[in-house]
């Protein structure tokens, strides 16, 4: 589903590459933690998957497409197959929960009746039934992140990227969010989650890819956050 083949990414203003000859394969339906310190290259990895950035060397395939050869007018099509969640939720403060989720469908031109049908469904899925008319600032952090997940998932993407989704949440709330991501993964969505949260990684026992200084230093199929050897 996602394949990095000797990918190097260097930002023009920096001397050291953010990612250095990174090769990673993520199969369809996998749940992968991307761990590492700040500046290890996790965010760059996710930005490359979204084609927010282009590689300097190496090739990336996402959902069967070679991103280097993908025409820029086809990038929106790629992003419609990827849902993305961030640490800071990125909700629109002047729209209700329902409107926030519907916005993602409106701007890609989905018909109104379809939006009216699927938005309540996905709110139900993330456990926000009955809160559709609330404004984001009336919700707890965990609930806001659920809205963000609903928005990312409402278009039923093949891939869900999560960049520190529990970074702003307390441990109990984080567990709820992880359960939700796990459920989304179980219906066949490939989930790639960058995180610092050792407790979560340790408890989930999923594949862990660790980055350090732009290199992959560990790739374990049922890993924990810290070194296990």
């Amino acid at each position, binding site marked *: 589903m996602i394949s990095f083949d000797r990918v190097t990414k260097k930002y023009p203003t920096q001397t050291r590459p953010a990612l250095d000859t990174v090769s990673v394969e993520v199969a369809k339906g996998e749940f992968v933690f991307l761990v590492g310190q700040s500046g290890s290259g996790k965010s760059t990895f996710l930005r490359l998957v979204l084609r927010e950035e282009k590689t300097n060397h190496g090739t990336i395939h996402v959902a069967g497409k070679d991103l280097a050869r993908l025409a820029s007018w086809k990038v929106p099509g790629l992003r419609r197959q990827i849902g*993305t969640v961030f640490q800071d939720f990125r909700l*629109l403060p002047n729209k209700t929960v329902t409107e926030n989720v519907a916005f993602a469908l409106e701007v890609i*031109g989905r018909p109104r009746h379809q939006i009216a049908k699927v938005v309540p469904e996905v709110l139900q899925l993330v456990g926000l039934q009955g809160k559709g008319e609330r404004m984001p600032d009336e919700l707890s952090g965990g609930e806001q992140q659920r809205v963000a997940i609903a928005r990312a998932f409402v278009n039923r993407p093949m891939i869900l990227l999560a960049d520190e989704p529990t970074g702003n949440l307390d441990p109990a709330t984080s567990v709820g969010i992880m359960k939700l991501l796990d459920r989304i993964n179980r219906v066949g969505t490939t989930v790639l989650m960058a995180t610092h949260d050792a407790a979560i990684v340790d408890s989930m026992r999923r594949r862990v890819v660790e980055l350090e200084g732009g290199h992959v230093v560990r790739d374990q199929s049922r890993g924990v956050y810290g070194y296990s050897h």
Partner: protein
Amino acid sequence: MRFRLVLSEMMIGLRRNLTLTLAVIITVGVSLVLVGAALILSRQVDRLKGYWYDKVEVTVSLCTNTDTQAPCNDQPATDAQRTQISQAIAALPEVQRVYYESKQEAYQHFRDQFKDTPALINNTTPDQLPDSYRVKLRNPQKSAIVISALSGRPGVAEVVDQRELLSPLFRMLHAFQKIAIGTAIGVLLAAIALIVNTIRIAVFSRRREIGIMRLVGASNLYIELPFLLEGALAGLVGGLLALVGVGLIESVLVHGQLKPAFQFTQTAFVTWSDVRFIGIELVVLGVLMSTIVAFLTLSFSRATRV
């Protein structure tokens, strides 16, 4: 594409930047009025030229006994000279038509022209006025050939291209036109700078929405269309203002001032149909200009592009 949604985004953007949008509309309007004034002037020059060039001709004045300089030397033109001159004129290929104005006819015109100053008429006899050939050219631009072919002949006192008499007027109109165009360019640049900044501010104030749109895969067109429409609408309103402006110029200046002042040249002025045409040009220009500027602004700003 959900057009109502795009339209509502556009209206939100316009309201959010109302003062700036007004500034854009006014500068676009003012600059286009100036462009329109320049166009009206150039149309006016064409109309005047068309009118006068139909009337004016090259005048070949013949010698009288008061012309002291060569080739006259105080001798009035003889009939033999008249015949020669007439034949020479008829032989020129540039000449379309020629007619002879006798001293008596010249005196008649003179009396008409100076009927308000009888003293001048009383002191003038038909004999003092030159008879002349009035020459109409196929192409008024070629008067120099005719003038050089005829001046200096025996019996010819003077050859005058009457078009030359109008050239100060046309020079003045051209100068006005240049001033209008120069000012128009200045205000146009201000309008463009304002549009660029308005679009950038509009993009900035909606950066959160734009970020999400890009993330969920909205197309470039969908993201940019509200801004382009904002620009187009401001340009349209500015253009309509300019349309009203040139309409005012026509009704107040041309119909209110010029026409009553110069009753004898009714056809020589810019007409309503000229102004209608110019006004439509201005509206189209306003929409095109602001849309293109908005488009270029968006193309150079990374915020809206994938």
